[in-house]
Every structure is written in structure tokens, then in C-alpha cells.
């Protein structure tokens, strides 16, 4: 059988392969990486009956334009995404959270994410990709991932593992994209380094998400945090969501491709259940932080897991 593949007619701004990420390797200086919005990534695979951790294409803002040069496949796109499918039958406006069949010669045009940042494209059976340390996630800065970790480029051939065999299509109806402005934070290891007055401001005044935001970190500006102890600490391990505060007092929220260790004090950490929503916020948006207890964060996490399970349970055939 001939190898099925997509040809890249437009790569998009920041298109990479991602799965859940790499684990058990951070002590080597290798960040976990993985899909920024885990929930959307997961649902793209579940819609296609794929194994949960099958690699997807993650795109930001503008996605790729792909031509199915050879083969037959089924796709699912998740996130708040505007896309079109061009086939011999004409042009279809695509709906996210629904599967579509693509035949040889069809084109998939992922035009933009709406009022959000990241979206995911999965295909039935997955893309044909080499794993490194158990994952296909790309980290362009460290040359790690398929094709030496490079972002998806013009004219790339993206190989498809197998042709589609599933007849029916599926959908998750009524996915809502809610506006979220307040993000919950747990105190960090150097919470006590910062003045009470400036922490009070941090947890009550707005912070603007700047354009200096990528898979590695989100820089926000607002009232700066006043460090009373030391703005450098011996480097220590970092987990995504940590809010580090360098000497200038402006917080940086560390995201999935964060450095594995860091020497800036951390005032707090975004709770896990708020992470997927946080990374979907556009730059120039104002957000607020609120301090919560560990018990509250754990309860929110249980709800987050429940919500995902509920979405999976309402998948229906079209």
C-alpha cells in the first residue's frame, strides 16, 4: 500500500506535534512539554476512538492549510476554531468537536482560533511520528521531537499511520467557550519573600497579558511585586503554572515548555484545573488572580476531571 500523507500548503504560525508530554526526564533538564490545552487535545483523540495519548497537531492563532495528497482519513478539530474543508463537492464550514472524512485531494484550511489561542487537529489512528523519551512532543528550542523538533514547515510531508476504516462520524454538541477572567493561585515556595501590601495588590488588581507569551511562559504586567528578601535563589525545580517574579517585579507564569529549574522566587502557582483556560487567553486581555486553599484547588481539580468525563459521555453519532 502506498504511504498516505498530508502536504503542508501553509504551515501556520506555531504548529507543532504534541501529546501529553515527557515524564520521568526532567532531572536531565528536559521539560515535560506536551499539549498546552490538555482537555482539548484529549477530546480530539477520544472523538476518533484513538488511544488517549496519540500525537496531534497543535496550532496557535492561525493554523495550517493541509492537502491530503494520498489516502483517506478522518479528522477531529478541537478548541474554538474556525476552519474549512475544500473537496470536489465544494466548501464546508467546519465545526470543532466533530469528525469529518477527508478523501484524497481534499484540503483542510485551519483559518484561526476565535477569542482563544490554541487548537488541535487529530486524525484517526494518528500521524506516523517517531517518539523520543516516550513522547512525540516538539520542543523547537532543544531540537527535540519529530523532524528534530522543528515547527511544521511549508511543503512538509506529514505521514499518516493508517487509512480511515471507521464509517460513522461523531460529535460533542453544545461545547461552550466561557469567558474566564479570574484565575486561582496557590502560594508558592517564596510567597513570604513578597511584601503584604504588594501581594494584596496582586490578588485584587488586573494584570495585562503581554505579547511576550509563548509555550514557555506568559508575561503579565500590572502592579509589580515587591521582594523584601532576595530576587535570586539557588535554582530549584519548576512545575508548569509557577508564577516567578524576577528582580523587576513583573510576574512570568511558566508554561509547558518552561526551563526545568529556575533561580527566581515564585509567589504562587496557577491551580491545575485553571491551566487549560489560562493558556487560551489572548494577549492584551486583563486577568485577575485570587488566592485559594489547597483543599479548594483539589476540589476544583476533581470537578475539572468530572467535566472532561461528562463531555466524553455525551459524544454521539451523527
Amino acid at each position, binding site marked *: 500500500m502506498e504511504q498516505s500523507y498530508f502536504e503542508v500548503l501553509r504551515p501556520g504560525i506555531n504548529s507543532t506535534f504534541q501529546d501529553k508530554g515527557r515524564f520521568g526526564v526532567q*532531572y536531565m533538564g528536559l521539560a515535560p512539554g506536551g499539549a498546552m490545552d490538555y482537555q482539548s487535545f484529549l477530546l480530539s483523540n477520544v472523538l476518533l476512538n484513538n488511544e488517549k495519548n496519540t500525537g496531534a497537531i497543535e496550532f496557535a492563532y492561525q493554523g495550517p492549510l493541509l492537502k491530503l495528497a494520498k489516502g483517506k482519513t478522518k479528522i477531529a478539530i478541537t478548541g474554538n476554531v474556525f476552519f474549512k474543508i475544500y473537496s470536489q463537492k465544494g466548501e464546508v464550514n467546519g465545526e470543532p468537536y466533530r469528525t469529518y472524512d477527508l478523501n484524497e485531494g481534499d484540503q483542510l484550511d485551519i483559518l484561526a482560533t476565535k477569542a482563544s489561542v490554541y487548537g488541535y487537529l487529530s486524525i484517526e489512528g494518528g500521524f506516523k511520528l517517531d517518539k523520543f523519551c516516550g513522547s512525540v512532543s516538539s520542543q523547537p528550542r532543544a531540537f527535540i521531537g519529530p523532524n528534530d523538533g522543528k515547527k511544521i514547515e511549508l511543503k512538509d510531508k506529514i505521514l499518516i499511520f493508517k487509512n480511515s476504516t471507521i464509517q460513522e462520524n461523531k460529535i460533542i454538541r453544545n461545547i461552550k467557550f466561557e469567558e474566564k477572567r479570574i484565575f486561582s493561585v496557590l502560594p508558592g*515556595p517564596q510567597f513570604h519573600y513578597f511584601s503584604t501590601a504588594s501581594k494584596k495588590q496582586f490578588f485584587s488588581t488586573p494584570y495585562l497579558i503581554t505579547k511576550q507569551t509563548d509555550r514557555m511562559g506568559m508575561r503579565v504586567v500590572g502592579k509589580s511585586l515587591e521582594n523584601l528578601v532576595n530576587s535570586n535563589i539557588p535554582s530549584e525545580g519548576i512545575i508548569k503554572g509557577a508564577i516567578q517574579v524576577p528582580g523587576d517585579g513583573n510576574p512570568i507564569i511558566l508554561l509547558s515548555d518552561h526551563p526545568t529549574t529556575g533561580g527566581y522566587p515564585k509567589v504562587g502557582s496557577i491551580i491545575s484545573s485553571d491551566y487549560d483556560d489560562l493558556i487560551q487567553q489572548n494577549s492584551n486581555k486583563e486577568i485577575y488572580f485570587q488566592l485559594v486553599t489547597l483543599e479548594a484547588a483539589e476540589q476544583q481539580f476533581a470537578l475539572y476531571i468530572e467535566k472532561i468525563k461528562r463531555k466524553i459521555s455525551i459524544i454521539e453519532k451523527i
Partner: protein
Amino acid sequence: MIKKITNISDQGIICDFGGEVNKDINKKVISLFNYLKEKSNNDEIKGIYNIIPSYNKLVVHFDLEKNNSHKIKEIITSIDLKKLTTSQSSKTWTIPVCYDDEFALDLENLTKSLKLSKEEIIKTHLETEFYVYMIGFMPGHPYMGDLDKKLFTSRLQSPRVQVPIGSVAIAEKFCIIYPYLSPGGWNIIGRTSVKLFDTKNLTNPCLVSPGDTIKFKKVNKLELK
């Protein structure tokens, strides 16, 4: 010994071994790291994403669906650290370095600030047996110590935008090697061609591990490959 264990996230805790940075404390961190890593590999501790040792801290990142900080803190506090053996698997590496002027971008300036000749700086660096405290920041990037007191120095006033790959650099009492092209503010005294992180090596991509020993060997430019 562990001074305290605190949450740094709903999916992460940090064990604090105190404020000092020295080998004895770091060896305790690494022995706990090795112990927990083994327990996690054997699935005796469930849902561990990563265990990250640093100079005097150990971070444990876990999946809240499979475990929680209460249970993990309980496991760690029940361990008798004195009984843990320090890394039996630690290795010694010899790393070739070329100290030629074209690579040793800050050596000239260091002769002034340290009031030592280039030869004295190089000789002191070569005589030191370095201990690997941690790997961090980027893949394969080792933090080693301790430098001879004569070489203690601060970081550059303004960091370089791009440090060449393989640069060997010093600051405070530590020595590092930059495995990737990256920004950096340490004083560069030489270059090595040793690949610290090799993505083609699927079983063991990272050359050195925390707890290993490193000696440097002076080579000329041609031997650098």
C-alpha cells in the same frame, strides 16, 4: 535533612533541605531522588510525573488523579534518610576543553578581576575535581562545583544574547557547560565538543547525571573536532 515539605502546586511538593549549598546536602537530595525514582519506576508510588533534584531542594510533580500531596508527604517523612545509600551508580567523566582565546571569551577580563594569569586560571580549573550538583535549565546542562576560591567571580553585568554551544563557563563557586545555543551571563573560559545531550541516543540521552564527578582535560583546537 529535610527542614520542611510544602506544596508548590496542587500537583507538586518541594522538600527543603535548608538554605546552604554544599555537596553533603546535595548528596542527601540525590539519595532521596534515587529512592523515589526507583519506587516510582516499580509503581510502588503511583502517578509520579517528575522528580527534580536541585542544589538543596527536591520537587515531586504528580498526577492528582492518581495521588495527592498528603500521601506523598507521608511517604517522604516516613523515610529514614540516613539509611539511604548515596548514588552507587555515580560515574567519573573526563571532558576535553580548549582554552584558546577564540573560545575563552572572558578569560582576558578574568585575569584583571581575579588578578591571576591565564595560565593560573586554566591550571586551577584543570586541577579541580568537579561534582555535578544538578542538571537543569536546558537538556543536559550540568551545574558543577566547587571552584577553587581563587576563581570565585560574579556573573557578567549584561548577559550575552547568544552563547556558543559547548562553552565552559564559571560564576560564583560553580562551573557550567552550555549544551545549546542560548543566552547566558556566565564567564566563558573555554569550549568543549562533548555532546551533553544526544537525541539520537534513545536509551540514555543525557551524558552526565547528578552526583557524577567531572575532570577537565586541556586539548588544542584540532583535538576539539
